[in-house]
């Protein structure tokens, strides 16, 4: 519906280049949303994703400044992201602390490290091949990040919906106890989803650095809320155990198209944020209202049935 309305309203919206533009402008967030879906389905949350993105981007830039080749810097950044994820996972899965608190600490801590490394500076001057990967089309009109996103969509869908690991994630998310008694190694599953989240966030951070061509300590600051919105709007329950990858992918497309439509109509950033916020509330509210209405209907039907059965019981 959004696509149709916007296409009618804004000339040039359906142009293929615009569709590529709108994906490219937020592609890093979309990629992380795929990994975060696993965390949320497993009944946890990872607030540290944007800070891990920033830290990874900063690491590549900072290491380059210290004379380390960018190739090595990328590997180091990915390793650091995975470590951040494992660190989060350790406190949540092994020690049993709430993920909200652990990853909130991560949000602050990892960002802190990034800021320590570059202070207030803006570091650029990456080699050309690195910038080109982020800024120029690789195959046809599609830049690398878009191709990676497409591949990850397939991998994430298969992993969550059609693999044993995916089923474990759902079971862990619906009930930890049930999962434990049915022989699922809950800590191991949780460690895995957090490590995935960290690795993907770091990878996205590197992509972001390549697209922007320069990095600051505040790179990717505040992205976590957009990414969580993408997942929740896709129908993944914040309590874990339900939701689907198809929903998340659809929600990513809806949000990006909506934002782009609003931007093309010159709505300010605040308006865009307001609209997406309202949409999120609706997306949580409507299913709950429907569920409540249905429950009420069932209850009154039961009462009705009980009343009808009364005379015969007399």
């Amino acid at each position: 519906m959004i696509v149709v309305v916007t296409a009618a309203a804004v000339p040039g919206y359906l142009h293929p280049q615009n569709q590529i533009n709108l994906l490219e402008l937020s592609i890093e967030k979309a990629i992380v949303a795929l990994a975060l879906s696993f965390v949320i389905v497993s009944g946890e949350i990872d607030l540290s994703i944007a800070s891990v993105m920033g830290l990874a981007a900063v690491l590549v830039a900072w290491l380059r400044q210290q004379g380390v080749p960018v190739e090595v810097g990328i590997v180091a950044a990915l390793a650091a992201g995975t470590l951040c994820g494992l660190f989060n996972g350790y406190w949540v899965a092994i020690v049993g602390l709430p993920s909200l608190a652990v990853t909130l600490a991560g949000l602050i801590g990892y960002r802190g490290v990034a800021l320590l490394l570059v202070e207030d500076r803006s570091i650029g001057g990456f080699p050309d091949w690195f910038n080109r990967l982020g800024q120029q089309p690789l195959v046809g009109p599609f830049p690398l990040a878009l191709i990676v996103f497409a591949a990850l969509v397939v991998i994430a869908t298969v992993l969550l919906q059609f693999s044993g690991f995916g089923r474990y994630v759902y079971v862990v998310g619906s009930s930890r106890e049930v999962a434990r008694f049915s022989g699922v190694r809950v800590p191991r599953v949780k460690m895995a989803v957090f490590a995935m989240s960290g690795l993907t966030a770091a990878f996205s951070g590197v992509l972001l650095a390549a697209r922007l061509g320069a990095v600051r300590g505040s790179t990717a600051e505040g992205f976590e809320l957009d990414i969580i919105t993408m997942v929740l709007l896709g129908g993944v329950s914040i309590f874990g155990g339900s939701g689907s990858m198809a929903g998340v992918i659809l929600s990513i497309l809806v949000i990006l198209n909506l934002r782009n439509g609003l931007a093309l109509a010159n709505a300010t950033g605040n308006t865009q944020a307001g609209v997406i916020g309202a949409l999120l509330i609706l997306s949580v509210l409507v299913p709950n209202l429907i569920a409540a209405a249905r429950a009420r209907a069932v209850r009154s039907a039961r009462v009705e049935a009980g009343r009808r059965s009364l005379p015969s019981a007399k």
Partner: protein
Amino acid sequence: MRIQHGAALSLLAISALVIAACGGPAAAPSATVSATASATQAASPSAAGVAKATPGQSVKMMLLPKFLGILPFTQANKGATEAEAELKNGTTHAFVGPTADNSVQGQIEFMTNASTQGYKVVMISNNAGDQIAPAAQAAQAAGVKIVAWDSPIPSAKGESLFVAQVDFNETGKVMADMALNLMGAGGGKFAILSASPDAANQNAWIKALNDALKDPKYAKLQLVDTVYGNDQSEKSYTQAQALVAKYPDLKVIMAPTTVGIAAAAKAMQDGKLCDKVKVSGLGLPSEMVSYTLNGCAPQFALWSFVDLGYLTYYASYLLATGAIKGADGEQFEAGRMGTFKITKDPTRSDGLRVLMGPFKLYDKNNVEAEAK
């Protein structure tokens, strides 16, 4: 006008999109450029002629400041609006921008969307350093003219022209002179409170200041630190406090940004430090008047942002209508401000510049008259 106020409900906003489309004419951009083919407008820079604008053409233009919500940019928009009325442009320009905390990403997004939206010119005060260059180059390739004002694209990649408020090297000398005035012949320690680390104009001025300081005249001035307040009042305020705490014998805070200088002056005033630490830099008289009169910021400088917006609009209109090509040596007339010349930018390794000027120094003698 469009849908700025429809923030409350998503459904409302979506339906507002339809209305916006009906209300906003989608300008027929391709027709506008060819309409310039009048004989007098044959834009040949070698003819030593001064290009003049042909009013009444329709050019869809975007004025993109670093972010919305501070006075200098609003003043620039006032100047652009004034020029627009004179040139009778059939399409009202858009004055849009990101929020201050999303400036880099936001500017890239506006730049990326510009050609889809049918803009013929983006007038940008660049806050994204060279990070904006890929998007600007893509827009240029799609036929959009990119005119920088206030803050250029450092590499000049993707930029047709830069309308410079003042000579960037001169800014360094002006700041060095003000620091010398405030500290006296004895000299002492001073620090810079800048905008954001990606701001090309501030970075160029800081570099120019460092170069100027090599002059033996300023030998006793010791620049001890450069910090960034990101053009946010609160952050600038705490950064100014932090500077004083870190350097107890600091004598001057030099802030080459209107947000930073006002915040630093307030921080010194609130901390009752104005006898020890003076604030100077680039500021707006209306925001600085009380600090200048109470001695916290005895001297500062600036130029007219209204004129800058006006001149930028003229240059952009001339460029988009083909009256000038954006080449070294071309001259053009910009309404009430007179004739200007496009030259190579001596303060960057690449790029073309139109120099506005002049600097205006403010102190207790003239600040009240300007503040009105």
